[in-house]
Structure formats: C-alpha cells, structure tokens
C-alpha cells in the first residue's frame, strides 16, 4: 500500500515468559484514525510503546513513512514525525509552567543546542520567542491559553490531558499516538475529546492511532479498529465489521447472551 504511514510487521514483545504482543501486523494509512481496542492486558499500551520506541521489540519490524525505524530510539522517531500522549499523564512538572511544557513540545521543530545558545544568542533568542508564540497558539487550540502561566499541579485532570495533547501537537507530528485520551474523563469531556480528535484529523491532517476503552469515542471517531486479545490480533476492520464480528463479541464483551 502506497499511502501507508505506519507499517507493523510480525511484531512480538516478550517480557520474560510473558508474551505481551505476539506476531502482530497492521497498517495505519495516511489521514486515517485507527483505534486499537481490547480487554485489559491485551497489549494495547505495549503496542504503542513499541511504535513510539520506548520498548525495543523482541522480533518484528516497524516502518514509518516507508523507512525502517525498528532500531531507532524514541527521540529519533519524534524527529521523524511521531507524537504521543500517555495513559498515566506524563507532563513536565519540575517547576515548569503550562506554557513551558508546550515550548518543550516544540523541541523537534527548533534547532539551537548548547553551543548555539552560547555563541549565537541572537538567533537562539529569536527562535525561542517564536517557539513560545507557536506554543501559545497550541495552548489556544486546546483551550488552555488562560492558564499558560499556571503550574501543572494547578490544572484539573481533564486540563492536564489537554495539555499533554497540546505538547504532542506542538511538534506538528504526522502520526499522533493517543493512549487512552478519554480515561478518567466524564461523559461530556469524553465527547469533547472525540470532537477534538476528529478536528485534529480533519483540519490539521494528522494521522491518528489511538488506544481507547471508551467505546462511544471509538465508534464515533475511528475509520478502522484493530482488536487485540492476549497480544494477538482478533479482528481488524471498520467499526461496523467489528461490531458484528462474533469473535470480538465473545472475547471482548463476553458471551452473546450477556452482551
């Protein structure tokens, strides 16, 4: 497939004797929203960690934009155009403000290193100012502009999730990996999150791969759904196909009579 942005081929990850992801292959195409679902412990987050480079796979290959990235580290993949959020929010807290978190998100889009700061301050300073302005735009996008100078601890849970999203978006990624964006959010907030996901794809043209437990959100946003169970692919198809798949209903929702 020509328009494949991310290709995962026969990916396996074992932690000691526990095989978390087993011989998994799938593709995320440009402009698509792909959801990965499955019961607890099915290997969804492990899968995202493998894609973003936090874990090294036991075997298998990952190709991003046609280039093999299996051996490259997480920061290199960020430079290639991957951005992600975390299930258990991982914001920069050490005395950093909301704005600084998003400025940090501009890292791959800016250049100045230590020597640049020391020797070419004028340029470094100009770059930093424009990164800050861009960061303010992204804060505005997720609706956190009024809180730009707050510390992370002063934000509500939902706001922290938005901030993490803003930090990931600030790097203007081509592929955005969202790990349970709606976890811990209430009904209204989750719906808002779903709209935002669609908005990110439609107006920014960013391809999205998301792991999610909230079925409403998945069914409303995803173009394709990959169902995992015990680290293996159970089904891969459109939401309608998945909803009607006997296997999925049995494994994911239990026996049909209880569903």
């Amino acid at each position, binding site marked *: 497939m020509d328009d494949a942005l991310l290709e995962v081929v026969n990916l396996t990850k074992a932690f000691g004797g526990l095989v978390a992801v087993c011989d998994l292959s799938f593709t995320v195409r440009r402009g698509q929203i792909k959801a990965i679902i499955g019961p607890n412990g099915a290997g969804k987050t492990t899968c995202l960690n493998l894609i973003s480079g936090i874990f090294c796979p036991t075997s298998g290959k990952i190709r991003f934009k046609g280039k093999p990235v299996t051996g490259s580290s997480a920061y290199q993949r*960020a430079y290639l155009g991957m951005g992600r959020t975390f299930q258990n929010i*991982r914001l*920069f807290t050490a005395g950093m403000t909301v*704005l*600084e978190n998003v400025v940090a998100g501009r890292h791959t889009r800016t*250049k100045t290193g*230590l020597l640049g*700061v*020391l020797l070419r301050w004028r340029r470094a300073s100009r770059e930093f100012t424009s990164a800050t302005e861009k960061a303010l735009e992204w804060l505005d996008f997720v609706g956190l502009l009024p809180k730009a*100078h707050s510390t992370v601890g002063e934000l509500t849970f939902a706001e922290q999730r938005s901030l993490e999203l803003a930090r990931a978006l600030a790097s203007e990624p081509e592929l955005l990996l969202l790990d349970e964006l709606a976890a811990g959010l209430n009904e209204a907030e989750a719906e808002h999150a779903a709209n935002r996901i669609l908005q990110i794809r439609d107006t920014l043209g960013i391809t999205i791969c998301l792991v999610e437990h909230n079925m409403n959100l998945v069914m409303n946003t995803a173009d394709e759904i990959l169902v995992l169970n015990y680290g293996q692919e159970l089904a891969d198809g459109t939401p309608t196909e998945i909803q009607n798949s006997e296997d999925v209903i049995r494994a994911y929702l239990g026996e049909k009579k209880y569903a």
Partner: protein
Amino acid sequence: MAKYRTWIVFIVLILFIPVLLRTLAPALLGRAILIGIFTILVIGFDLAVGYGGQINLGFQGFFAVGAYTTALLTVRKGLPVIFSEPLAAMLSGCMVSVVICYLISRPVLRTGGFFLAMVTLAFGMVVYTLANGWDFLGGASGIIGIPRFHIGPLVFSTDLWYCYAVWAFVLFSIFLSLRMVNSRWGIALRAVHSDEIAAEVTGVHVSKYKMEVFLISAIYASIAGSLFAHHLRGVNPPMFTFTLLLLVTLAIFFGGMGTIWGGLVGAALVQGLPEGVTALTSYWPWMSNTRELLYGIIFVLIILFMPEGVFGRVRKVFMESNRLPGKNLRTR
C-alpha cells in the same frame, strides 16, 4: 532600559561594594572574594542538580582539578611559559575537568540515579586520596607559591583588584547561565529532569543533554577552583573534602534549587554566615563555635517556611503578579 535594570543594579553593586569594604572593613574583602568564587561553584552545581536533576557527589573533585591544574602550571617550571599564564592554566583546568568528567560519566549517565551517585562519590574520594598521597601533587602539604592572578603584565596585586576580577567572572557566569536556562536547551534540560521518558518521546536526546549539563557544571567548578587557588596562593587537600560539597548543597537549598540568582543568594548566606557569627561573638562570647548550629537552624527554618529557597520564593511572588498570557515570555 527596564530590560537591563537587574544587570545595571548588579554591576553597580559589584563596582561599589568592594570599595566600600576596603574603606570600612578591609578584613571583609577576602570574604567577598570567597563569596564570588563560591557563587560560581554553586551555580555550576545547580545547573546539574537543580536544572538537570543529575546528582553529582564528586563535585568538589572538579573544584580540586581546577585548583591543582592552576597550581601545577603556574608554580612548576618546564612547560612553555604560556601555560603559566593564569588564564591559560584556568583553561587547561577546564579541559582536564571536561575530559575526566566525560570519562567517568559516560558509562553511568545513561542509567543515572543511584549509579551516578556512586561513581561520582568514588571520583571525589579518589581525587582527595590522590592529592593527599601523590608527591607530584605536593602530598598533604599541597603546593604553595601560586602567583597573584594576572593577565599578561596586568597584575591584580591587591585584594581589591582581585575582588573585581573574581566578580567579573561571577557576572559572566551568571550571564551565561541565564542564557542557557532561558533557551530551548534549558527547557529541554528541565524536561529531562522532570520525566526522561516523556522528554525522549518529545524528541530530546536525553543522554546527550545529561552529558552536556554535566560537562558544563564541571567547567564551572574548575574555574572556581582556579580562582580559589589564586586567592589562597596555594592548594592543599583539606580544601576539597566532602564538607565543601555539603556547603554547596546547603547554598542551593538556601537560595533555591533551579534558580541562577538563587546561587548568588545561597553562596552569600553560606559564606557570609561565619563572618556574621564572628561579629556577634564580640558582643556575646558564647556565640563562638555556633556556626554549624546556625547553619542547621537556618536550614530547618528555610525548609519549613521557604521550601523553594529565598530566591525561589521571591520569584514565585513576582510571577504570581505577572500572570497574563503572552506577557513575561521569558521564563527565568
């Protein structure tokens, strides 16, 4: 103009306080020099620990490397005469520190945490033992006869002039540190401190940043060491014990972790305190030998009431009043 207000005030203070001290209390000039040297040391430590979050228990070792390199190059003959120039000796000290720092931290920075603490602790001890036991370094009595600081024929022949020289270095190091932390580099560094995995996913080459800040802090320590050697006109091992590291750590807590100006505040508090105690002793004789006790009391008070340090508190109050989107883009 408002942009440079802090700097103008600072430079004016640097220019006038030494003159004032010389006329009113010449004995305190030495203390002012010490505070300056200590400030450079504290800022270097704060860059690695307060900003980068990388613990360094052998920091006093790099101070020693700077001091001993200066001592060897300016006192011992045999090398081309250019090396006995204080600035050249200082630069050589920095290079030696950078090489040593690279070699010892390269294998462990990746893992960080506990391993880093152990290796740097060992480094500090090795430096002390070497300085004590190796005749080439003068053994327990150290090396004496270091000339006064000079740049070519320009000799800083009195304490007053040396005070200006040291504070010029302080000014420069504060200036550079502020630039470093108020940049993309500084933001990424604090991101590494806060969450290495999130930083890596954001695109920060974590191990490179850790190494860079470690090298920078070693350079600061080395420069402070060279200045210290010229101040005392000699070096010996007891100057570089673990106590020095404790004082530096104390200064960071006093001034505020992760604040550059806080380094100055902390250094002034820690190095100024003994002088204050001495002054008070002439009124209340029982105050003698209470220095450690006072350090302890102040430390507890600061931890209780200003956990972010003196300067950290000031900045926090200042920032609360400055919270408007788009305004105050500079973060530190």
